[in-house]
């Protein structure tokens, strides 16, 4: 199988914000991701001799494993900080200095950091491509890449879709990034389902309005489900709360069960960035519309495509 033509414009670039890339550049990423899904063996040596550093200053299981699996499957190698508590940051080294040092060892850096804007700062100092693996509550662009690729693969298009976001829309960074990214596609409509305390921030609502897109806010999932092409569930994240009482009060605000899903169209998909806590009942896993574990797998392929593009190895 021939490897598809890729967007050269991504070579050497950083990926800090989901909107750093144009829709055309995303198309190139999707196209190569699909090629990897179809013929993974074609890509097993494409990154031979390349080294990726993963710097996770905040706990992560799946994002880090997904990146590392992606690089290893491409034939590249990975170095990483085993434990942020014992890393240079714990000794007081600045992010800027850490990045400049690590860039001397690796061809590509993936960084997750608890502070908002950390990746933007790191990119200013990194001479090699830097991928934001999540910076506080702000951005998680490769989750957005994963989500867009999952929707495109499952529904065949990113245009004219009604997307229902449910759960923590205030602190959920995957939601913010995905809403911004979907706002660039034709005819997107949003339903925003959350308790009042966890509503989408006003600035983001202004952005959606500014794009001339439709959205409805509601506290009732039932109002939104019959319209959905995509139901995007999120976890209420304990680490984003200053106050444990607020967390306990809101964590079970919305739980999706098989019974509730009878209102969802047959052709719709149910997504979740994972990890799930209790917001989707395990009985839903058997529903063929539930794509969240498939979504996690597609995330690895999407990251493989991203690495190939940024390193310019095809």
């Amino acid at each position, binding site marked *: 199988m021939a490897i598809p033509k890729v967007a050269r414009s991504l070579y050497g670039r950083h990926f800090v914000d989901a909107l750093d890339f144009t829709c055309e550049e995303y198309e190139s990423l999707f196209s190569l991701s699909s090629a990897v899904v179809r013929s993974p063996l074609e890509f097993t040596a494409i990154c031979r001799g390349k080294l990726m550093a993963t710097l996770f200053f905040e706990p992560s299981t799946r994002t880090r494993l997904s990146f590392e699996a992606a690089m290893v499957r491409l034939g590249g190698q990975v170095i990483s900080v085993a434990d942020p508590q014992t890393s240079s940051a714990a000794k007081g080294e*600045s992010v*800027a200095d850490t990045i400049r040092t690590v860039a001397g060892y690796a061809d590509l850096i993936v960084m997750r950091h608890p*502070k*908002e*804007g*950390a990746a*933007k*700062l790191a990119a200013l100092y990194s001479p090699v491509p830097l991928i934001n693996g999540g910076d*506080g509550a702000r951005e998680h662009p490769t989750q957005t890449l994963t989500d867009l690729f999952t929707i495109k693969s499952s529904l065949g298009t990113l245009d004219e879709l009604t997307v229902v976001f449910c759960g923590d829309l205030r602190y959920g960074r995957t939601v913010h990034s995905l809403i911004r990214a979907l706002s660039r596609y034709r005819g997107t409509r949003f339903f925003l389902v959350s308790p009042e305390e966890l509503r989408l921030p006003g*600035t983001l609502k202004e952005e959606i309005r500014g794009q001339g897109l439709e959205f409805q806010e509601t506290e009732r999932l039932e109002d939104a489900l019959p319209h959905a092409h995509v139901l995007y569930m999120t976890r209420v994240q304990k680490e984003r709360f200053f106050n444990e009482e607020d967390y306990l009060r809101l964590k079970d605000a919305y739980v999706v069960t098989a019974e509730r899903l009878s209102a969802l169209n047959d052709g719709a998909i149910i997504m979740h960035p994972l990890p799930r806590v209790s917001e989707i009942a395990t009985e839903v896993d058997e529903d063929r519309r539930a794509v969240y574990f498939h979504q996690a797998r597609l995330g690895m392929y999407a990251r493989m495509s991203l690495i190939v593009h940024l390193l310019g190895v095809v």
Partner: protein
Amino acid sequence: MLRVDAIQEGIVLDHIRAGTGLRIFEELGLGKTGYTVALLMNVPSTKLGRKDMIKISGVLDLDLTLLGLLDPGISVNHIENGQVNKKINPGLPERVEGFIRCKNPRCITSIEPSAQVLFTLVRAAAKEYQCFYCGERVRV
């Protein structure tokens, strides 16, 4: 009527909103520069009713970004040989480096010494700026 002599070389900050002059004087550190400086407050003005003015003798360069932020309606008159050589209305600056602090405790600038704090203007009517790093908005 109180009179202050015209200066030969220097800068006159005119049309300062009444009551703002002292803050501008302090933010520019004019008390420590050694220049001859006159701060006039509540001067009658046909345009503003009352205004503040600052005359600085000898200096020909000031941080216009800072002035625009403190009072975008200000006039900066450059005086050479006793004449107004150049008149600038700084307005609200598009970019502000290092003057505004990000109030978001989760922002990287709260812990990173190398981060050059940078804000960009997002809504001039509301004097609203946005942190380059975390996106937090502040009104100045």
